[in-house]
């Protein structure tokens, strides 16, 4: 326990260095703006801006990106409330009550509540993170190749079992990501592999950023072009009245919802740890629970401030939760953390529990920076509400070319090869079309990051056991993990059978928030 405080203090000496502090503040501000733009969330921001970090030391790079991640989670609420369009899928539940509040002329109340709830969610989850991470990393230190592979199976199995998307398409998405990651040179024999059309550009493999920026940059822009064309360019921006007096009452009213905020934070954190679950379902579940906890559930959907508090606390807590498996196990808990993990590899770090001993400055600097980022994000958020509203007034036809410019640079920078820019465009267009047909894209991004780690883990395990797959089931940690993974994998197949056995009366879904 005391040891953790010592390490955390050491982390603060890293996070509070002037340069890193500056990165935290810039990252929070950038993240807030990215989050506030409709259609862009943390994953888009982190994917498009990761190439900027190549020249900063790894501590600075991760601190910057984590601050963007945090800022974007705060900012997502802004367009949910002001436009009624979620700034990112994670802020969907915030529209349910945030939008009605804005329509009633209380946009400022919704915005302040969202910021404060995000702060509570962020703070509680970072504290949980601080105390959960070291013991988990300690256990994970004993993990060998079979355990690593079992954990990755678990990550993919959660997408199949809990993702809620079309099963065949989810499985396709996972496998295509893994196969694309296998392009290049075979890691063991060094032989060229999957060099499509004998194009030399494939020899250096497909950088995960090419896929991530393709899907979350170009694909997302095409998607937003479509959404904008549907809306016909009409602005639905609400007006917000901001005065010091109103802010004080708003803060007081927020304090009245502290129970909901704490509930949302804990719920979000634990849901966030699971890959495939993450911030969006966490926020929706918190909304549902918040409604049950409320004395006036009938107000939900019509502008209840608890309805803003619960999802906003939960989505921020979930973003911290998703960093726990990324940092301790090397398994990302969300697409955004998958990109952070890929970044770590680029910066020359080996993700996983050994980071805690080999790079304590990196790990604890990151954890300490989360405390700082949380504080700066809430301050910047409340101070700059007028600036965010101004951003929302900026025409999309100016924002889009700016973002596309960043995508072009981001696709080129990692490998300095135009081949990858073409590939990024292809992934963007195909990814956009697949998204239109309900193919989930997040599993593919997770898979292309995990692919280069999963394949050697599998091959080493099989080499240890001379080809006997039972090695995954007979070791003390990998056994149970693998069993859970298999259960999750077959959950969608088992659920209907279970329902039939129960006599078909279990059509009721568990508590989940739905739009009213």
């Amino acid at each position, binding site marked *: 326990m005391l040891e953790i405080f010592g390490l955390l203090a050491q982390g603060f000496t890293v996070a509070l260095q002037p340069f890193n502090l500056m990165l935290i503040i810039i990252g929070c501000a950038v993240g807030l703006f990215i989050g506030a733009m409709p259609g862009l969330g943390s994953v888009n921001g982190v994917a498009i801006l990761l190439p900027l970090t190549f020249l900063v030391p790894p501590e600075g790079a991760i601190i910057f990106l984590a601050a963007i991640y945090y800022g974007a989670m705060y900012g997502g609420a802004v367009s949910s409330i002001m436009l009624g369009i979620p700034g990112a899928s994670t802020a969907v539940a915030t529209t349910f009550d945030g939008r009605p509040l804005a329509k009633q002329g209380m946009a400022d109340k919704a915005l302040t509540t969202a910021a404060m709830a995000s702060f509570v969610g962020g703070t509680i989850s970072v504290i949980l993170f601080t105390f959960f991470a070291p013991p988990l990393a300690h256990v994970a230190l004993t993990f060998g190749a079979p355990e690593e592979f079992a954990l990755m199976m678990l990550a993919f199995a959660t997408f199949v079992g809990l993702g809620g998307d079309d099963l065949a398409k989810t499985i396709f998405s996972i496998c*295509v990501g893994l196969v694309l990651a296998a392009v290049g040179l075979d890691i063991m024999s060094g032989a060229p592999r999957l060099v499509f059309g004998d194009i030399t550009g494939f020899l250096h493999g497909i950088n995960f950023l090419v896929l991530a920026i393709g899907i979350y940059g170009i694909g997302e822009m095409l998607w937003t072009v479509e959404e904008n064309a549907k809306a016909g360019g009409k602005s639905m921006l609400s007006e917000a009245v901001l005065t010091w007096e109103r802010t004080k009452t708003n803060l007081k009213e927020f304090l009245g919802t502290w129970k909901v905020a704490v509930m949302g934070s804990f719920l979000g954190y634990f849901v966030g740890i699971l890959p495939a679950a993450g911030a969006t379902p966490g926020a929706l579940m918190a909304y549902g629970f918040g409604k049950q906890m409320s004395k006036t559930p009938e107000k939900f959907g019509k502008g209840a401030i608890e309805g803003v508090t619960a999802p906003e606390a939960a989505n921020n807590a979930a973003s911290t939760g998703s960093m726990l498996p990324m940092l301790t196990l090397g398994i990302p808990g969300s697409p955004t953390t998958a990109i952070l993990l890929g970044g770590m590899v680029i910066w020359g770090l080996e993700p996983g529990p050994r980071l805690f001993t080999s790079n304590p400055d990196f790990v604890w600097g990151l954890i300490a920076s989360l405390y700082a980022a949380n504080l700066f994000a809430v301050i910047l958020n409340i101070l700059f509400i007028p600036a965010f509203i101004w951003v929302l007034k900026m025409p999309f036809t100016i924002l889009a070319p700016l973002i596309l410019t960043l995508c072009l640079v981001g696709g080129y920078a990692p490998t300095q090869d135009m081949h990858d820019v073409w590939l990024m465009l292809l992934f963007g267009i195909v990814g956009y079309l697949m998204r239109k047909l309900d193919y989930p894209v997040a599993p593919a991004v997770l898979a292309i990051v995990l692919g280069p780690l999963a394949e050697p883990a599998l091959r080493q395990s099989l080499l240890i056991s001379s080809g006997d797959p039972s090695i995954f089931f007979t070791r003390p940690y990998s056994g149970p993990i693998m069993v859970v993974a298999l259960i999750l994998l077959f959950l969608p197949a088992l659920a209907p059978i279970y329902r039939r056995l129960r006599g078909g009366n279990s059509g009721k879904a568990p508590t989940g928030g739905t739009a009213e």
Partner: protein
Amino acid sequence: MTVRTAELLMGLALAVLSAYFMWKSAELPIGWVPDVGPGGGAWPFWLSAVMLGSCIWVLVNWVRRVGPVATNEDPLFEPGIFLPVFMVGAALTICIALIGGIGVGGFEGIGFYGALPLFLLFYLKVMGNHSWLTAIGLAVLIPVITFLFFEIMLKITLPKGMTEPLFLPIYAFFYGL
């Protein structure tokens, strides 16, 4: 084209892609290699096989009309939606082709700073219908900021193609060469 038709075409295209991946993976050993473990092609081969399987599953669902996409007879693009999306995609494609050329006729491209202003001008003027002042202003300003930020501050060199000689005086100014 309806969503249902698009689902069929996408399923077929991805199935062909999966089969191609399998065939390409099989260039390396896909079975057990003594003392080496699984061959270099095994991992992508079997994953591509699962991909092919899932495509067939999608196609079976299509035939049996199972799921919201396979039964959706709405047009894939509502009227007036396809054109803007297509124009953005086409503009990007042309922009990337202009940056580095496409290896035809010895054209080595007009570089990032030649193509980007044209792309921006097209987007701002044609897609955004902004005034000439805004369009030209931003089409000049954004590349200049990109240059200062990426090339000078972050030292990320972007391709210049045939415009490379034009940058020599600028480098000389910044680096005092």
